[in-house]
C-alpha cells in the first residue's frame, strides 16, 4: 500500500503511533509536506468524517483519529511553516461570558484540530472583548462561541455587535452553537454560521473558510 494511504488508514483506526511513524517516514522519503498533509492526514480525517456521517463509526472513533492527526502534525508542522504552506485556518473558541459548560466546546476544539485547523481555546466564560481581541491578535479567521444556558446565549449578540463596532465583519466570521442556540437565533444576532453538533462545526467552519 502506498505510504500516504497507509497514513490515512492508520489515522482512521486512531493509531497515533503508526500515524506518527508514517509521517516521519514520508518526510524522510522527501514527500512534499503539503502532500503528506492533504493526501495522508486530511484525507484520513475526511474519510472517517464521512463514515461518521453514515453512522458506520462513532464519535470516539473520530476523536481517536483526531488525536492521531495531532500526533502526525508534530513532525509536519515546522516543515509546513518553513514551506510557507498556509494553514486551513485558525479558530478562536470559548464558552460565552457567564457560561461554565464547556463539554461541547471542548469537543468542537478536538474535532476542529483533527480536521487540520489551528485552534486557540480561550476556555470558559470568555468576555466579548476577549473573543474579539484574541481573534485580532491571533489573526484568526473564525470565532466559535458556545452557550448551554438561555440566560447566557444573549452574550453572543454582544460579540457580533462588538465585531460590527470594530468594523471586522469582513475579516472575522462568527459561528455559534450549544443546546439552546438555533439557526434562527444565529441569523437574528448576525452570526455567520450555526453548528448543531461538534461534527457539524467542522463542516460549518470549512464552508465559511471556503474549503467545503
Amino acid at each position, binding site marked *: 500500500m502506498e505510504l500516504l494511504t497507509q497514513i490515512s488508514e492508520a489515522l482512521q483506526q*486512531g493509531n497515533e503511533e503508526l500515524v506518527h511513524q508514517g509521517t516521519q517516514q514520508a518526510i524522510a522519503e522527501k514527500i512534499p509536506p503539503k502532500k503528506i498533509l492533504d493526501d495522508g492526514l486530511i484525507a484520513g480525517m475526511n474519510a472517517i468524517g464521512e463514515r461518521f456521517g453514515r*453512522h458506520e463509526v*462513532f*464519535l*470516539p472513533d473520530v*476523536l*481517536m483519529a483526531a*488525536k492521531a492527526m495531532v500526533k502526525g502534525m508534530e513532525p509536519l508542522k515546522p516543515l509546513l511553516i518553513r514551506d510557507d504552506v498556509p494553514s486551513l485556518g485558525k479558530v478562536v473558541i470559548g464558552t460565552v461570558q457567564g457560561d461554565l459548560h464547556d*463539554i461541547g466546546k*471542548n*469537543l468542537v476544539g478536538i474535532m476542529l484540530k483533527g480536521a487540520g485547523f489551528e485552534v486557540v481555546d480561550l476556555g470558559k466564560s470568555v468576555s466579548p472583548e476577549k473573543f474579539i481581541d484574541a481573534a485580532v491578535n491571533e489573526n484568526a479567521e473564525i470565532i466559535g462561541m458556545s452557550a448551554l444556558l438561555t440566560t447566557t446565549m444573549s452574550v453572543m449578540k454582544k460579540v457580533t455587535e462588538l465585531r460590527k463596532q470594530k468594523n471586522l465583519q469582513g475579516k472575522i466570521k462568527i459561528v455559534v452553537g450549544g443546546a439552546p442556540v*438555533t*439557526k434562527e437565533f444565529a441569523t437574528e444576532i448576525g452570526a455567520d454560521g*450555526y453548528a*448543531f*453538533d461538534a461534527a*457539524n462545526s467542522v463542516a460549518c467552519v470549512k464552508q465559511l473558510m471556503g474549503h467545503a
Partner: protein
Amino acid sequence: MRPRFELLTEQLKKQIVSEACQVLAEIGMEINNPNVLSLLSEHGARIDKETKRAYFSNELVNKALRSAPSSVKLYDVLGQQTHDLSGYNVHFTPGSAALNILDHKTNHIRKPSTEDYVQYAKLVSQLKHIAAQSTAFIPSDVHENISDSYRLFLSLLYCEKPVVTGTFTVDSFNVMKDFQVAVRGSARALREKPLTIFSCCPTSPLKWGDVTSQNLLDCAKYGIPVEYISMPLSGFMAPVTLVGTVIQHTAETLSGVVISQLASPGTPVIYGGSPAIFDVRYETTPMGAIETMMVDCAYNEIGKHLGLPTQAYISLSDSKHLDAQAGMESAIGATLAALSGINSISGPGMLDFESCQSLEKLVLDNEICGMMFRLIQGIEPREDFPSVGLFKELLNDGHLLISNHSRRYLKTEHFFPSSVICRSNNARFIEEGSLTLGQRAHAEVESLLSKYQPSRLPAEVQKELCRLMETEARRYGQNQLPNRG
C-alpha cells in the same frame, strides 16, 4: 443478574395445572380426528365415540410431560444452529399468517402478492435481532390450496433462517415436509436438525379440529417441532378472569403435548399460544391489551413450571398504521416477553390483530428486539471496581469518550439502533429532512433490500424445491407460478 418478570406464585402455578388436569380428566377434549382418538384409546384414554370426547387421566398427562424434551434446537437452511428454545433464552420471529400487508406507498391495508413475500423474505434475512422467519402472510396470487406450502417454498428460497410455519390442510403437510427433506438431504437429517416449527391450533373451548390434530401426528412422525397455539378468548370463549383463561389454555395445551408424545415420545414440542381478552365493545381480540400480554406471560410461567420450551404471540399491535399505538403495544409486549423469558416470541411486523404485516414495522420492531436483548443482559460490573481510578481519569481528561475503559465496553454496554430510531437533535433532524418514522423505516427497508445477498442454499436444492412446488401447484390446476422478480 438476568432481569425477570413474574406474575404467578409457585402455589398458583400448581393450582392452575391441577385445575387444568381436572378439566382434562372430567370434561376432556373434543377431538375431530379418528386417528388421534384411536391413538389416545390405545394408550388407555377413555373415549366417548358419540361426542368424540377424549378424557385425559393425570397419569397420561404426567407420562407425556416426562417424555417431552425441555429444549428445542433449530437450524438454518445451511444446517447452522440458530435457536436453543430452553430456559430463559429469547428469540424473536415475525408474527405469522397475516391475510394482508400495509402498503407503504398508499398507507392502505391490501392483499399481498408473491412480490411482497419475496421482499419480506429478503428483508428478514437481514434483520439482525429476528432470528427466525415465519410464513408471515399469505400471497393472494396463487391457488388457495397451495397458499400454505407456497409461503414456505418462498421462505426457503430467499432467506436462510429457520421458519415458523403451519398448514391449512392435511394434504399440504406432505409437500411442506418434502421441502424440508430436500433442504436437509434426508428425513433422518431433518429429524436431527429441525428447520421449521409447525403451529398447531386447538379450537377453544377444549377442542381439536381434524387438520390441526392430524398435523400433530404428522409432525411427530418426522420429528418436526410443533408449537401449540391455544387461543382462549377471555370473557367470550374462556372465563373472564385471567386465571380462568390460563387454566383453559393449560388444559388445551397439555392435551396437545399428550397427543404429540403418545405419537412419538420425545418429539420436540413448544408450549405456545395466542390467547387474548375479548373486547366486548368492539367484538375484537386485542393483542395489544395488557391483559392479553399478562395471560401470555402467565402461561409461559406454566410452561416453564412444566419444564417445556415456550412461545407466544406477543409484541404485536392492533393499530392499522405504523403509529404511536403500534410502537407502544409492540414495545410493551416485547419488554414483558423478553423479561418473562418466552423462548420464541412471535410478533414483529404485525398489525391489526394478527391480520396485517408491515415491512416498515418489521424494521422498527427489529430495533425493539435489539433493545430487548440489551435489557435481558442486565447490569453487570465490568472492570468497575475499584472505581476511583476511572473517576480520576475523567477529571484529568475532562471526558471519558476515548478512555480504554470506554472503548472496551461502549459497544456491549450501549445498544446502537439504526437510523430508524431518531436520536439526533432537532436541528440535525430538520437538516436531514424532518423524516417521519414511516419515512425512516421505509428508507431502511429500501436500503436493506438493495443490500440483499442471495441465499447460499445450493442451486440443486433450490431447483428441487421449485420442482416440488410446481408439481404441487399442478395438482390444483395451477400450471404456472407467479413471477418472483
